[in-house]
Every structure is written in C-alpha cells, then in structure tokens.
C-alpha cells in the first residue's frame, strides 16, 4: 500500500464558508473528532491564513491565537498545522507566536508564480525545527514548467514538500496529472495536492494526483471550504482505502467527525452553486464567491459577469477590492446599454 499523508484544513479553508466566524467551541469539537479519527495534520486559522483577519478579506470571530490554543489543547497525536501567506502573515507578528503556541506544521503559501516571497518564512520555520511545506495557490494559472521552477525555489528555501492548490477548482484531471508528474519527476521532496470542487472534480482530481505520484492530499469534512468546497475528506479516505493507498485514518471515526461537523459547525453543506461553476470556469479564486455575491446584489449586476471579468483580468486572492470596481463598472455599462437599447 502506498502511503498518503492527509492534511485537513476544515478549520482553516472552512473558515471561508462561514465568513471566518468559527468559534473556539467549534474548533475544540472538530479537533477532538479529528484526533480520534487519526487525521495526521489539522490545519487551523483564518481562511486566508494567520494574520489575514481584516475588513478586506473578512474579520475573524475568533482570534488566531485562541483558535491555535484551543486546537493545541485537543490535538495529541494529530499535528497542529498553520497556513500563512507572506504579506498577511509576518514572522514576528504571526509565525513566531504560532510556533510558540505549539504549531507543528507550517504551510507557507503564495500565488503560483511568486515563490520568492516565501523564502524568509520557510527558512524561519525550518530554523525553528518545524515541518514546513511550500504551497502554490491558483496552480491552474501557471504552466508545468513554471510550477517546476517555483517549486524548486521553495525546495531550495527548505520546504520539505510542496502542495499545488487548485484554488479556483478550475483544473481537470489531465492537467492535474501532467503537473503533478512533472513536479514529482523534477523535485527531491514530496508533492501534494489541494482541490476545490467548483466543477465537481475535487475527489477525482485528488485521486488523479495520487496516481501521478502526489503523496500529500488535502480534504475537509463534508468538503467544508471556500466556494464550492474542498475535496470531501471522508469520501477521499474511503476511496483511497478502496484503491492502493493507505492513510492511517480510521474510516468510521472519520465518518463520525464529518457527521459531527455537519451538525455542529456547518451552517450549510457545500454545494456546487451556479456561481461556483462560473468561478471554476473563469478560473477565479473560490474565496471570492461571497464577495461577488454581495457586490452583485449591491450593484444589481449578474455575478457571473463579475466572475468572467475577474477571470479575464487574472485576479488572484488578495485582490478582492477589484470585485467592487468591476461590479460598479458593469452597473454603469448595463445602465448605458439599457439607455441605448
């Protein structure tokens, strides 16, 4: 059996789905359930990573430090993971305190063509003796060659593995297989994959990645995550077990954890809504969905038009301000169109 390391960002990516309103009680309850199930890594924090709580991308109900303390108290064998995007997170303000609170695993993420921005954070985490991974977000926006170059940078900075994120849920299996295989062939460190389900491809893309040589996969309970959600973890664990892969996770307890999450954490089950499909087709970050819905309601424009315009402009996470500008422009254009018509 080939081993797959599962990392579970239910308490991080799932934060997007509840506008970053996870409570400490919910963090504690899911951490306990994940610990019972034997999930190797439980990632906790604001949806955009530590230090990202802001008016621009959403203010957290629970401070990062309290979330980490709470999770730490409930995780023993499972490792406590954190996610940081340099720019949102700084070493002194966020990373160092998180390590002091007991984070075991650090993921340092950036847009898929900007690995240079991760050097200091990756190096710092390694210097502190922590397990550290590099993450390339929006990986559908770069060619396999570019991804290899960027991952090699992260490897040279000290990353112990690299994760491709299909942040927009825009990838199809052939593309995933090609990119993962190129990375596996080119790097000396493990490769991972983190899917979103905008086009209903999350599970199959994750399995394709594993078949292509990825040894780290992400999934969340009930797929709880940004946009149309992530790979549904309990499905992934079940199917991996049915195939030639070993995760070390207790399936029954994983199913229990997902049931508990549905009951106690999720205000709704992630679904592939029309805007999610458009977001995937346009190749736009899933975390934009709620901002787009709000702007479309405010400016009375079609959210699908906003998504396609964001895709045309190749918008990336952190450029949420662009949504309002696009919505306003569309409203003006629509008004002019109706006058002329």
């Amino acid at each position, binding site marked *: 059996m*080939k*081993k797959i*390391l599962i990392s579970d960002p239910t308490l991080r990516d799932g934060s997007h789905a509840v506008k970053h309103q996870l409570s400490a009680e919910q963090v504690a309850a899911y951490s306990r359930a994940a610990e019972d199930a034997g999930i190797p890594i439980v990632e906790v924090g604001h949806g955009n990573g530590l230090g990202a709580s802001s008016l621009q991308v959403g203010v957290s109900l629970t401070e990062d430090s309290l979330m980490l303390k709470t999770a730490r108290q409930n995780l023993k064998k499972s490792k406590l993971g954190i996610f940081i995007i*340099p720019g949102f997170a*700084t*070493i*002194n303000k966020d990373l160092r305190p998180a390590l002091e609170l007991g984070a075991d695993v650090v993921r340092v993420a950036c847009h898929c063509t900007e690995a*240079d921005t991760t*050097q*200091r954070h990756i*190096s*710092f985490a*390694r*210097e502190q*003796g922590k*397990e550290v991974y590099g993450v390339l977000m929006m990986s559908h926006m770069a060619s396999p060659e570019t991804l290899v*170059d960027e991952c*090699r*940078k992260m*490897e*040279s*900075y*000290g990353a*112990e*593995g690299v994760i491709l994120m299909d942040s927009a849920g825009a990838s199809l299996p052939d593309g995933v297989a090609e990119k993962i295989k190129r990375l*596996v062939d080119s790097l*000396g*460190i*493990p490769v991972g994959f983190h899917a979103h389900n905008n086009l209903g491809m999350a599970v199959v893309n994750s399995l394709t990645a594993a078949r292509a*040589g990825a*040894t*780290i996969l992400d999934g969340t309970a009930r797929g709880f995550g940004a946009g149309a959600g992530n790979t549904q973890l309990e499905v992934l664990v079940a199917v991996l077990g049915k195939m030639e892969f070993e995760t070390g996770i207790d399936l029954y307890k994983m199913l229990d954890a997902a049931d508990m999450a549905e009951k106690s954490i999720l205000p709704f089950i992630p679904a592939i809504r029309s805007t999610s499909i458009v977001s995937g087709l346009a190749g736009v970050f899933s975390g934009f969905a709620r901002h787009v819905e709000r702007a479309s309601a405010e400016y009375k424009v079609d959210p699908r038009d906003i998504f396609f315009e964001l895709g045309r402009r190749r918008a990336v996470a952190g450029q949420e301000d662009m949504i309002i500008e696009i919505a306003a422009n569309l409203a003006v254009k629509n008004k002019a169109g109706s006058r002329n018509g």
Partner: protein
Amino acid sequence: MNDIVRQDCESVLAGRYGLLEELRGQCLLVTGGTGFFGTWLAEMVACLNDFHGFQCRLVLMARRPQLLRDKAPHLAGRPDIVLAGQDVRTLIELPPETTYMVHAAASPDSRLHASDPLQAIDVIVNGANSVFAAATRLPGLKKILLVSSGLVYGTQPWEMTNIPESCFGGVDCSAAISAYAESKRMAETIAAAYRTQHRLPITAVRPFAFIGPYQLMDRPWAINNFIRDALRGGPIRILGDGASIRSYMYPGDMAFWLLRFLAAGVPGRSYNLGNPQGISLRDLAVKIAGCFPRQVEIECRCLTNEVARRSRLVPDVSLAANTLGLGLTVDLEAAIRRTILWNQSVKTPAQTEPADDRV
C-alpha cells in the same frame, strides 16, 4: 580572539607550514574576503604570521567589509590584514603589490541561486572576468586560485564512490536552478581563456562540503540542519530515507589546502577540495546525536512512494594528495564536536540578526 579556531590553525600548521614556504613575505588578496573561505584564510594567515614569522600581508576584498568586524573583530583590527570595500563586478584595479590571489567571491547559498539566478550568474561570470582582467595589470602576480565548485560535475553517478576531476556530465543547462553550477563552469572556462590569451597563472579548486566554525547553522544543508536540530534538543529530522551520501571536511584543513593550492598548485589544473570519506545522512545523524550527552531522537521522513532518490557527492582527492602531499588532520566526528562547541560558545551573525529585519 577565537580560541577554538586559533587552536585549529596551530594544529593543522604544526610540522606542515613548510609546505606553504612560497607564501612567506607575500601580499595575498582574497575576493569574497568576509565569507567562509575568506575568514578562514585570514585566520590561517594570522597564525602563519604570529607563530611562524611569515610576514604576509592580506587584503580581504568584499562588498561589505564591515561584516568581518562583526564576526571576527580580532582579524579586522590586525595591522597585517587590510579590508577593501569593492564589488568584484565593477573592479578596475587591484592593489599593485598583490602577488597571490584567491578569487572566492560568490554566495554558495542555494536559496539565493533559486530566487535570483541572474545575480548569481552576474557575480560569478562577470566577477571572474573583471578580476582576471584587472589581474593582467599586476606587475608581480605569481598565482591566482579560482574557487570553483564541486557542483560543476552535476549529478555524481550513484555507483561512483568518489568523483575525480576528469568526470563531467550531469548539469541540466536548461534549468534556472543550474545557474550556480553553470556559472562556476563558465568561470573555469574564463580562467582557461585568460591563461591562454594573457598567460595568467590560474589554478582552480572545486570545493565540496564543509562543517565547522564560521558556518551558519541556518544554511539549507543537511549537516547544518542536523546540528541545529540537535542543538535545539532534537529531534534530528532526515528528509528521505537517509541513504544519500555526502562528505564533510573541517575548515582548518580546508584553509590549509587552499593555501597549499595557492602556493604550489599547477596553473591549468583543477583540484577537488573535500573529504573523500563519504557517509550516509542516516549515519551522519546518528554520529551527530552521539556527540550530545543527552539522548537526541532521529526521525526519518520518507514521503515519496518511489524508490528513494539517493544522491552522492563525494570527491576523489587523490590528485591533491599525491601531487601536493595533502591529507586530512581532522576526522568527521572531531569536526562535528568542534562545530558544536563553537556554536555553543559564539553568537553568530544569524543569531544576532535583528528580529525586525524579517518580514
């Protein structure tokens, strides 16, 4: 004054300083003078002057010479050592009294090569060209030692225990990550061109891996990480199955070899510089753990499902041994113990770096 390093220099020179007799009374210049090589060369020259009356003058050239004042003030304040602030890429003139030169300017930090390969290429290729062009105008020049790299060989075949100077092949010239190795190859070719066209007496040296004082523990190399992990109380984490083979030379030996190459190396030849005795990373971790009084755990993190990717990087140093009488005086375990001792007793610049400098 750093007692550990001074003891190392005295020890390696004992009974052997006669091999460096050509350097007596000479003016030496080292580019990259505040780096790992430059600092150790300065320590060795200081010892030759203090205990063996060599009366050498040493010019350490670097972009930021004040770095030496920070990490080795006992060297920076010496009358026989001169600090010169100069970027080798824009070098026009060298001190005319220079008779021997070591061109070592370049950062071996693979993180820098990955982030800014163009700068790596610029410093190595254009730096070599500038330095050699300026050297053609030196009236009394006797020898230049070009510091190349063991990485010029590319991938060492797994079945080859030690790689000799004649073996080339495996650098992927289409990858940006090859910028450092390819630039070092180019620098050797530039050296060959200056030898042919200007009769510059240039010898090249290809360093492999080292461990010892003045080496920063934040560098992304296995042995540094292992020692750093152990100094923190462990565990030592090995990435992969630990079967890859490396070798490590103590910098006291390294500095002596460099001076010997400078004194007696044959122009036109390239010499490997390193320890010919390879060790697996797994055994290395065990050896490091054994140097601590408390128990240090070792974790092997093998996450690849393929056959483990093993690599080997170990030099064949028979050319240096047979033609220049060079050998090792410090074995790996002693090197590790002295490195630990030095790190426990000295605050390195990395440790004293202001925290606010990090974003």
